[in-house]
């Protein structure tokens, strides 16, 4: 069995008086894709942000194994965590609307480790999303939703992530693009040996590439599926995602 790349243990987190996560524990084995499932408002994004240090957990730990070294991420600043190679594709894309596609992508390479390989990674991005190369000088704000999602993923790739967190990459995308995006994430895993934690509503698509999955209900992990099949058979998943 693969070594764990990311381990969340007993995490409590929230916003001010509102507690959103209760005692969440989660493991992401190295080189695998873990799908984080759960309907709206159950805390998926909060969990992602806690891992990245954007939300300060009140209890619990987040640890990562990066290049064979164990690092405690708990309490570190987001800048530091990103610099270690844990990168998030945020919900709602969060692009720089007035910058061009290329400017957005280059900014992705802020990490010290990524700055050396800008041109190489840019090529990789354009290979993955040829549309972006056509539009490299377009202002991102004027692009369609799907195009913007491509930029968001591309920008994360520019920072050469070791562990990639992806928050709902398929929202608002055409089915064909959803497929493409999901496949791209799958292929990135294969190509770069990425470890991926992905929150995704589109269960049918997500499960195609996921190695395992966890279901978050009301801020707690309600079910952990070690395999894709076990997820498909879970009653929670059936209830929420498959309408049965």
């Amino acid at each position: 069995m693969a070594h764990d790349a990311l381990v969340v243990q007993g995490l409590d987190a929230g916003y001010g008086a509102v507690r959103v996560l209760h005692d969440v524990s989660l493991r992401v084995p190295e080189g695998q894709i873990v799908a984080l499932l759960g309907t709206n408002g159950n805390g998926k994004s909060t969990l992602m942000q806690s891992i990245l240090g954007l939300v300060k957990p009140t209890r619990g730990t987040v640890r990562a194994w990066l290049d064979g070294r164990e690092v405690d991420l708990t309490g570190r600043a987001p800048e530091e965590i990103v610099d270690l190679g844990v990168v998030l594709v945020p919900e709602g894309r969060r692009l720089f609307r007035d910058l061009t596609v290329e400017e957005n992508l280059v900014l992705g390479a802020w990490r010290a480790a990524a700055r050396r390989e800008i041109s190489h990674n840019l090529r990789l991005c354009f290979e993955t999303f040829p549309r972006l190369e056509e539009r490299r000088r377009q202002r991102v704000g004027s692009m369609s939703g799907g195009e913007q999602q491509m930029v968001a993923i591309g920008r994360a790739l520019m920072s050469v992530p070791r562990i990639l967190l992806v928050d709902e990459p398929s929202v608002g995308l055409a089915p064909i693009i959803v497929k493409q995006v999901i496949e791209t994430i799958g292929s990135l895993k294969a190509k770069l040996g990425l470890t991926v934690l992905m929150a995704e509503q589109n269960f049918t698509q997500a499960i195609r590439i996921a190695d395992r999955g966890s279901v978050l209900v009301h801020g707690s992990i309600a079910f952990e599926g070690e395999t894709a099949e076990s997820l498909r058979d879970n009653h929670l998943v059936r209830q929420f995602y498959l309408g049965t």
Partner: protein
Amino acid sequence: MLDPVLIANAVVSGLLLGCLYAIASMGLAVSFGMLDVVNIAHPAMMVLASCVIAALCAPTGFDPLLAALLIAPVFGLLGAGLYRLYHLYFERRGDEAMQGLAFFFGLMIVIEVSLVLVYGADQRWVETGYGGLSLGLGPVGLPLRMLLPALMSLACIAALLLWLRRSFTGRAVAAVAQDRDALRFLGADPIRIKTVAFGLSVALAAIAGGCLIVVQPVDAHSGHVFIGRVLAVVILAGLGSLPGTLVAALVFGVIENVTATLFGPAWSPAVAFSLLLAVLALRPQGMFGRAHA
């Protein structure tokens, strides 16, 4: 009766004047145009720098342009501190739009009155070796008093542009105003970036102050003349476009001086600001601004 030599001279002196406007506007183009911090006290800071430089150089005979380069880092640090304050009290609370504006208005008043209290109401000036000298390009005259600050201005602007284009921090400055927190996803600290950029903009005010004191003597209120002009230049250019700011400043200077030559100086401000109104009416995003959907 249009004398071509007179017009040529008006254009050239307008360009030199435009360079002064450019360096005076450039800091604001960074703070206002890129960081969304409407630092209305920018011209007052410029005059503050002029006064400090005058106090340093008048007794020692040190060159004011060099002195400006020396005090620019100090101003930069002060600016950085000021931004921290601004961030703490306005930005973080999301009150920056109007409250922040009032804050800088207050700061402007405080700077001006402090100058009067410390330096008195007299004019401040600096004697430079090149004060009265002039280069001649055929029939066109280039007074060194205008030319050297203009060159200094262009050099600083070029350095600034290069920094914004080439360095990572520079690139992030362009991004930070649009989505501050998104930078954090990339591992950059937006507050640090804004602090650096705002500090830089205040350092530019110091450089502009050095240029100004070479061009003309100043008193505590000399900044007022520049408030309207620098804002006009930044808007004329389109927020956030630094090359545009340079062009707009040059256009502004040339229009002022050509109007002064052809119709009399009384009409220069009206013509220049009417141009701004016209540009805004026809192209609301400014000459070089990006249209927003």
